[in-house]
């Protein structure tokens, strides 16, 4: 069976995509023990680096995000995923800060990942791509930051998996991070979250078009499996209240149920749409690798069983943010992180934003989130001696 969707991802060579490429020649020692490289990191920047290179903010994207934070996605044409946050006069003010966002290692938007060609075989890496971790992603990002000549980032910020990277940044490079903002994140991936990821991976691997991961060799794509993975995951990004508010039990373009398995309900139609548009822009094997990286994330395990030990002596200023209706990365996980930071007397702010929008609230219009971040960043900028933009 061939997939119903023609994946546009193949139709356009990604060399045309906007943004920068860094070819890293020096291999990276990965957590799995492999020395990986050379490899490419694709990244995007906004704003201007100031003379003393003190105004750089690294944005870490989430599982299915990418470096196109504030310009149109090169495949879908959709606006950047953090347009609400990044721009002139916005919270991440491009008139004041120099913003960097790099596609994660293992990703599919230009950085080396399983869909790229393995130079040793001339064929896509597929499952011969090494298993990567959040720490590996951060190590790769460090190469970009070094390349740009930035010794100390003003801030590292990100939501969800991006928040995991933020924590890993401070733990791995404590001298290089002045301020850290992990949003809707946790110091480890919970059993429930691993379980949801496993459902997604099994959906992909159960698709006959997945071909044991070799689908690119045979010109196929596990579009249905990937769509189902996205549909299941998407539910976890919302909340019961938000789903009810948006859709209730409303029917889709019909007055009565059709006594069949069509998308009778609006919520079904919405999920199908989420699934089918996702496969246009995302690689199934990348989804396997990146979800795995999140599953393996456990900061305490990396530091002798204690999250606090990861931050001993930290001089970084933290702003931890969670959302009341987020059941994927609930407030309790953020609070645990805050307690660990308290244990090392770190400078930390913690805000739980009241919203019914669930985990995805960090991507949406949340005035309280903006106000918190604006205040936090302004305070940090003052301590850092950054000039006001206007």
């Amino acid at each position, binding site marked *: 069976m061939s997939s119903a969707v023609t994946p546009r991802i193949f139709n356009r060579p990604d060399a045309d995509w906007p943004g920068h490429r860094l070819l890293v020649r020096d291999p990276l020692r990965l957590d799995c023990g492999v020395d990986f490289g050379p490899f490419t990191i694709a990244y995007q920047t906004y704003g201007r680096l100031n003379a003393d290179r003190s105004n750089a903010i690294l944005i870490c994207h989430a599982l299915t995000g990418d470096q196109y934070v504030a310009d149109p996605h090169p495949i879908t044409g959709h606006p950047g995923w953090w347009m609400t946050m990044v721009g002139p006069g916005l919270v991440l003010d491009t008139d004041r800060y120099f913003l960097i966002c790099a596609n994660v290692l293992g990703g599919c938007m230009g950085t080396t990942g399983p869909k790229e060609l393995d130079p040793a075989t001339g064929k896509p890496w597929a499952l011969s791509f090494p298993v990567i971790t959040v720490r590996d992603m951060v190590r790769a990002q460090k190469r970009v930051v070094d390349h740009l000549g930035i010794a100390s980032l003003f801030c590292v910020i990100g939501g969800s998996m991006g928040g995991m990277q933020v924590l890993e940044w401070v733990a791995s490079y404590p001298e290089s991070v002045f301020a850290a903002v992990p949003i809707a994140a946790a110091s480890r991936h919970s059993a429930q979250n691993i379980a949801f990821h496993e459902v997604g991976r099994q959906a992909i691997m159960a698709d006959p078009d997945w071909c044991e991961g070799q689908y690119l060799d045979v010109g196929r794509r596990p579009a249905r499996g990937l769509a189902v993975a996205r549909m299941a995951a998407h539910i976890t990004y919302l909340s019961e209240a938000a789903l009810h508010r948006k859709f209730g039990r409303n029917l889709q373009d019909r007055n009565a149920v059709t006594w069949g398995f069509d998308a009778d309900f609006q919520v079904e139609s919405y999920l199908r749409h989420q699934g089918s548009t996702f496969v246009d822009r995302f690689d199934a094997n990348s989804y396997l690798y990146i979800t795995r990286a999140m599953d393996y994330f456990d900061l305490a395990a990396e530091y002798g069983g204690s999250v606090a030990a990861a931050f001993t002596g930290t001089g970084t200023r933290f702003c931890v943010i969670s959302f009341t209706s987020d059941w994927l990365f609930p407030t309790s996980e953020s*609070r645990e992180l805050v*307690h660990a930071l*308290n*244990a*090392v*007397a770190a400078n*930390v*702010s913690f*805000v739980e934003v009241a919203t019914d929008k669930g985990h995805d609230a960090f991507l949406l219009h949340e005035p309280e989130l903006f106000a918190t971040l604006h205040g936090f960043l302004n305070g940090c900028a003052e301590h850092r001696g950054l000039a006001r933009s206007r």
Partner: protein
Amino acid sequence: MSGADAIPLGYAAPGTSTAARDRLRRDLRVIADMIEPSARVLDIGCGDGALLAYLASEKGVDARGVELSQYGVNACVTQGLSVIQGDADSDLDAYPAGAFDVVVLSQTLQATRQPRRVLETLLRIGKRAIVSFPNFGFWRVRAHLLLRGRMPVTPLLAHAWYDTPNIHLCTIRDFVALCDDIGGRIEKSVTLDRHGRPFTLDPRGSLANLLAAQGVFVLTRGG
């Protein structure tokens, strides 16, 4: 024991803006004057951050806060203060011993579930603890109960009995007894009248317990 010297009031550090100080609530002024410049301070129940903001800008203090209400936390963080959402009962245990030069608990002790434990924690994580609370032994409070036979409602205790957050009220005498009990040493104390004006009375005497609307105590771990 006569460890309860009255603190010299109004010894605001040179260069301190009196206008900024005047904007503070009166009991917070008393507390602010007790804090040395550049200290590491944790204000528990910091509200909208008025004290922390003053200490940070006027005394160069490393100011941190804990606040239960989301409104308060947001008000603090949006003005650049380091404040976490949490409460005195459950969010202090992680701090290491002696983490702060001064821990402030103003008008909050009576709203905690376990005041004794909270007070012990303050003495553990702070080299000094400054605690202020409404005095339930204040004559107006006593008179309210005695003459009207109703639970006292005063400007400091402004809630009706059924919706008050103040679940563990005490008198100055009660507080002093608890300090003795847990081995806390009273380094200084100030009594305030109902307008928040300070006056000096021995906190162990019955006059203080009768005439003070609130008490402000500086505690250290007993030797």
